[in-house]
Every structure is written in C-alpha cells, then in structure tokens.
C-alpha cells in the first residue's frame, strides 16, 4: 500500500518505521528541515522536507495514487487541512488524523476525515484502566456512531452484585457486549444473568449515559 505520512515527530517517525518494515511504500512530509534531515539519516530518501498541507507538495509526493494519508503532526489544524486537501483535491480513499484535543473529533468527522485517533482519550483510557476501584474504561470509540465500547469492573459492595440484568436496568441506548468473570469465564448475556464481584462488564453506550452505567454497576455517587 502507498501511504503518505504528514509529520515526522515521535508518532510519524515510529509509524513510518513500522510501515516501511512491513514493506509499504511510504512518503513522509515534514516541514521542519532539521527534523526531516535527522529522520532521513535512518529512514532514507522517503522524506520530503515540505509542508504537507500544500497541494503542490502533495502532488510531488504522489498523492494522486496514494491509498492512505495519515496526518500525525501535533497541530490539529494542520492535520485537518492535510486530510481535507488529500480527500478533496486528490481523492485519497482513506484519511486518518491524529487529534490532540478530544473536542475536535466531531469537527474532523463532519469535515470528512475518515478516522480520528484522539491521543488524549487514548492516554486517559490507559490511566483509567490502571486506577484502583471500579473506573469506567474507554476501550474503543465506534467510528461513525455516537457510542463507544467501555468496560467497568464490578467492585465489592456494588448494589449490582447478585441482581439480574432485568431487575437492575441499564441506561437507555446501552447494551452489554460481554461479561467476563474473575476466572476468565465469559458469561452468557441474558435477563437472568447475575453479576458477581470482580466481573468485567463490557458495554456499548453513548457518552452521555456513561455515568449512569457506571453508577448502576458500581453504586458510585
């Protein structure tokens, strides 16, 4: 696959290395000439030291036959413009943008970026995962839908313990995807399912119902 990577910071550099190692054809566009020169020392002549939002630069990079453009700079605005120019001027079939501000994700989607990766949300979900107690962990946003996959561990003392799903009641728009017992056994989902302490509940839920779900499963205030 022919991939154009915009930005050769930590993400762009590591991503490009991985893509090259997997035998993909890669062109990297990096505006900072010093950074581009440093990366070229290791990655070779796949780097063009120019602005990846400029149509002339994208033309030179071969965007017209590119199958995927990934914008990885630390600037949301730059990533958005690079993806838009690629999509509209060069008809690149797939664009992926790294987004640092989670509030920009919806805007990126509205403006036609195919996939957004919010670095802040990813870091938050990893921190949540490691926190003690029964936090709600964001596993995956569902692209194109207003829901995400989350996971909650049922803590000791939760009012959900020993109650069936039918009795407990889940927030509107929420459905359980899986319940994994402490021993790793996957429990079958049904109205008679009884939750136990330390069950991992994986659910699909809209963002505005996450707190309700978390309270229902942990009893937290």
């Amino acid at each position, binding site marked *: 696959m022919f991939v154009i990577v915009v930005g050769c910071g930590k993400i762009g550099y590591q991503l490009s290395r991985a893509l090259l190692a997997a035998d993909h*054809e890669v*062109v990297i566009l990096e505006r900072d000439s010093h950074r581009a020169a440093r990366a070229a020392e290791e990655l*070779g*002549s*796949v780097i063009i030291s120019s602005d990846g939002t400029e149509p002339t630069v994208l*033309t*030179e*990079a*071969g965007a*017209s*036959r590119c199958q995927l453009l990934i914008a990885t700079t630390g600037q949301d605005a730059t990533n958005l413009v690079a993806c838009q120019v690629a999509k509209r001027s060069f008809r690149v079939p797939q664009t992926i943008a790294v987004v640092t501000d989670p509030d920009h994700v919806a805007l990126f989607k509205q403006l036609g970026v195919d996939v957004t990766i919010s670095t802040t949300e990813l870091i938050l979900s990893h921190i949540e995962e490691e926190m003690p107690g029964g936090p709600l962990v964001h596993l995956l946003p569902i692209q194109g839908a207003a829901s995400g996959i989350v996971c909650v561990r049922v803590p000791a003392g939760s009012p959900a313990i020993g109650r069936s799903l039918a009795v407990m009641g889940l927030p509107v728009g929420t459905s359980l995807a899986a319940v994994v017992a402490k021993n790793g056994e996957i429990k079958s989902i049904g109205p008679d399912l009884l939750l136990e302490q330390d069950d991992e509940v994986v659910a699909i839920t809209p963002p505005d119902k996450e707190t309700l779900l978390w309270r229902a499963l942990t009893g937290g205030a």
Partner: protein
Amino acid sequence: MADQLKTALVPVTGSPLDEFTVGLACDLVKHHKGTVHVVYVIEVSRQLPLDAEVPFESTRGERILVQMEKVAKSHKCKVEGEILQARSLGPAVVDEAALRNADVVVVGSPYQEHFGAPTIGDVVPYLLKYSPCRVVVYRDAQARMESK
C-alpha cells in the same frame, strides 16, 4: 590505492563528463582485470509507481549505456551496463555500490554556480557521506573554462 580496485561503479547521466568518468574508472581497475559497472538511473516521479514503464527514459538510458560500453572497450576493460529505476540518484547509487561490492564509485561533477558561488549539487555530497566504498569525484577542466 589502485592495486585494491577491482570493481568500479560509474553513474552516468548523459552528460559530456560520462566519457571521462568511465575512462577514469577503466584506468583504475584494468590493471587487475577488474570490471566497470555503468549505471543509468531513471529518477521516477512519486506520481508514478517505482516500476512504471518510462519508455523515453529507458531508450535514452540504453543509448547512453551502449556509448559507454564502447568507451570502456576502447580502454580494453570489462564493462557491464544496467538501467535502474529509483526515486533519487544518490541513494540508488549507494545501494548499487553495496550490492555490487564496489571498490570505488567514480562520479562526474559539472562545474555549477548557485547565486555566484560554486556548488556540487546534492548527489556528490550524498555519495561522499553514504557510499560504502571510495568515491572519486571528477570535474573536467574544460567545464571551469566554459563557465568563465
């Protein structure tokens, strides 16, 4: 130095310097019945796949290689010619030098000026920095005279 040189690599571009660089490479390797590898690199635009057919450039390259083979034979030297397709000349020559286990790369550098200052372009510095073997840069005296 010359007693260790058996394989020379000469990138040619169709410039008047090619004849001299090939001749020089022959002189360097022929004492040990060495081989001169002459390469013509077609720089393929990124708008095309690397293996795209570029008939005009291929025909030009073939013509230049035939001419260089004649030069090498006139020096009674074994010669092999090849056309390569790459994104840029410098890395292609470095890769080829490594692949052929070349003892020396002989490259021509036409005299050029940029804003009044002498320059040797991008390829020669790249070869000087990254070539796995010796590099001989040939600049013709005539070129300097013409620039005056």
